[in-house]
């Protein structure tokens, strides 16, 4: 239903860092709940950023809701991801 395009942005941090932005407007998906494999892991901050810790490294299903729209993504979450991965939320019809 939904697809994503990911851009890598250099960063110096620890953990699996993601930032979710609306592909259409560029607006950050701030303060939205983030579910990994059906489990709520936290909320993005006001800039749409979140540090995700998954039980196991690898591909995980991530669900987020933003502005009344639901996005289902497949993200690679590693235990020691040093770079901030920017996820552009693209709605497909």
């Amino acid at each position, binding site marked *: 239903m939904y697809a994503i395009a990911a851009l890598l942005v250099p*960063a*110096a*941090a620890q953990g699996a860092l993601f*930032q979710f932005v609306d592909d259409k407007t560029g607006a950050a998906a701030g303060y939205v*709940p983030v579910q990994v494999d059906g489990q709520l892991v936290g909320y993005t*901050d006001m800039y749409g*950023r979140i*540090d995700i810790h998954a039980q196991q490294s690898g591909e995980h299903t991530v669900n987020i809701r933003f502005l009344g729209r639901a996005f289902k993504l497949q993200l690679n979450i590693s235990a020691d991801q040093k770079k901030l991965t920017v996820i552009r939320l693209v709605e497909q019809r």
Partner: protein
Amino acid sequence: MADGWIMYGLAGLSLVLGFVALLGQKIYIDSQTNQPTEVELPLVGKLKTNYPALAFVLVGAFLAAYTWSKPRDLGEEQWTITGSFLPPAGENVVWEQGTLVLLPKAFDAAMAPNGTFQITGSIPKGKRFEEVVTSIMYTNGKVSGQINVSEEYRKYGAHETSLVKSAGDKLREYSPATLVVYE
């Protein structure tokens, strides 16, 4: 809510007494006309009945309807949440420049200059803090961090390593949570 149950109890008692009286009623004779007392009801028509029994039923129905129509006020309790965030290694954080938020329920919250917070907020009676708030978050343009309230409380209950330092009645105390740098 106890008041509501008392009202429902009275309503039920009135209805039961009224029906019992109606079922086992005696016909009352008007002393002046020597005719049985008549009561006219909309839709039902004229009834020869006794006033007290009917009054009981009506009072019961009124009490029940009134109690049902009243908004249910469960009340709220004051909770106090304390904790702190630690800046990432080598970072100097001016705490007042960031934002402390509780999600999804909004509380008035602010960081103290030393990186600690004390939050007081109202939560519906009978609910735990973790049922109302799932995340405590601090963020500024550069660093961010959050306490996953539900998960940390679960770990605390399971005697696993948790950010929950103590959990009392209407009180939560969190150990320092380290922020992450986003650049």
